[in-house]
């Protein structure tokens, strides 16, 4: 493959990456806004008591718990789901990069990207 060819593929990958990032941030912002409005309308925020630290309730800190709360259309659950989408956005970008480097048959960087993905997965799904 000649150099020019590699460059145009790189550019196309860059564009898709840009779309992934934009969509993730917009979706996250939409969910957070919706959750915020629901919370404020129902006055069910726990904001004021939460200023002193005691850690979030169990259902707002695990992925199944957050999904459950969000599907029940609970304000805090929707906000947490939005934040989860936001955290997942860079992860999606890294995942997409794996395919990009696979497509370019750049095995060194397939390995590099998989290592980064493994560290991120540990953070999101590991037991800490």
């Amino acid at each position, binding site marked *: 493959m000649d150099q020019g060819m590699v460059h145009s593929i790189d550019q196309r990958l860059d564009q898709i990456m840009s779309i992934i990032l*934009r969509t993730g941030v917009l979706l996250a912002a939409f969910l957070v806004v919706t959750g915020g409005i629901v919370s404020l309308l129902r006055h069910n925020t726990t904001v004021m008591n939460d200023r002193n630290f005691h850690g979030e309730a169990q259902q707002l800190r695990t992925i199944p718990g957050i999904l459950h709360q969000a599907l029940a259309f609970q304000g805090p659950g929707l906000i947490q789901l939005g934040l989860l989408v936001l955290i997942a956005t*860079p992860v999606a970008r890294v995942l997409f990069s794996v395919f990009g480097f696979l497509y370019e048959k750049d095995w060194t960087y397939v390995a590099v990207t998989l290592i980064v993905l493994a560290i991120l997965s540990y953070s999101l799904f590991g037991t800490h």
Partner: protein
Amino acid sequence: MSSLEFTLLVGMGSLFAGFLGSLTGLGGGVVIVPLLALLFHIDIRYAIGAALVSVIATSSGAAAAYVREGYSNIRVGMFLEIATTCGALAGAALALHLRVSVISIIFGVVLIYSAITSLRQKTDPSRDLGPDKIATWLRMDSTYPTKNGLTKYHVRNVPAGFAIMFIAGILSGLLGIGSGAVKVLAMDQAMKLPFKVSTTTSNFMIGVTAAASAGIYLTRGYIDPGIAMPVMLGVLAGSLIGARVLAGAAVRTLRIVFSLVIGFLALEMIYKGFSGKI
């Protein structure tokens, strides 16, 4: 103060922080934590959780634009992300064990460093020292757009850059900031990347680094929806507005004022940390 008042006040403060952060290039995250901790008396762990989330939002939003313009070096970014994400995990683990007062003091010191580096003149030092063995093997050398078309550059000193990036990751996970100042130090000073490439690549990496520690903060219950909601939306909106304002002569003055404000907040954080009032 009602929930609505609290949300609006924190939202306005975050909007302002995001606006100034993006205009001056310091990032919104650095002022969010002192703002929440000192002004709103929110526990620093909640403040850091909210700041981390806002850092992901602004960096992803900005990276979407930079990646398309062809400045960021994706190979350099991806390779160094091994170091920053490992560091971020270590930093988040440290945050669980360190005392709040100690975190506050470290925060103050890093803030002062960020403020000072932002005031330094940014020029591309005399460079191109030629190809480097490791960088060539990792295919890091690339081109970037300049007035004279695409210009080639060589990447140097990968191990030193990697080590500094690990520290940047720790600070990011511990303090909830993008630690852009430390990232630029690694790429600009150690690895000799052109200034525009190092800043955009740093921005590209900040989201991934912050995501690594945000996962731990979330599962530990350090991310509160009521606080994170106005902070994330405010900082995101503010930084989008800031990015649209033309960078003119006023920005230099603004950067000095902003750095002074940050310096003052930093001293306050250090004082509160030592006197145990945080």
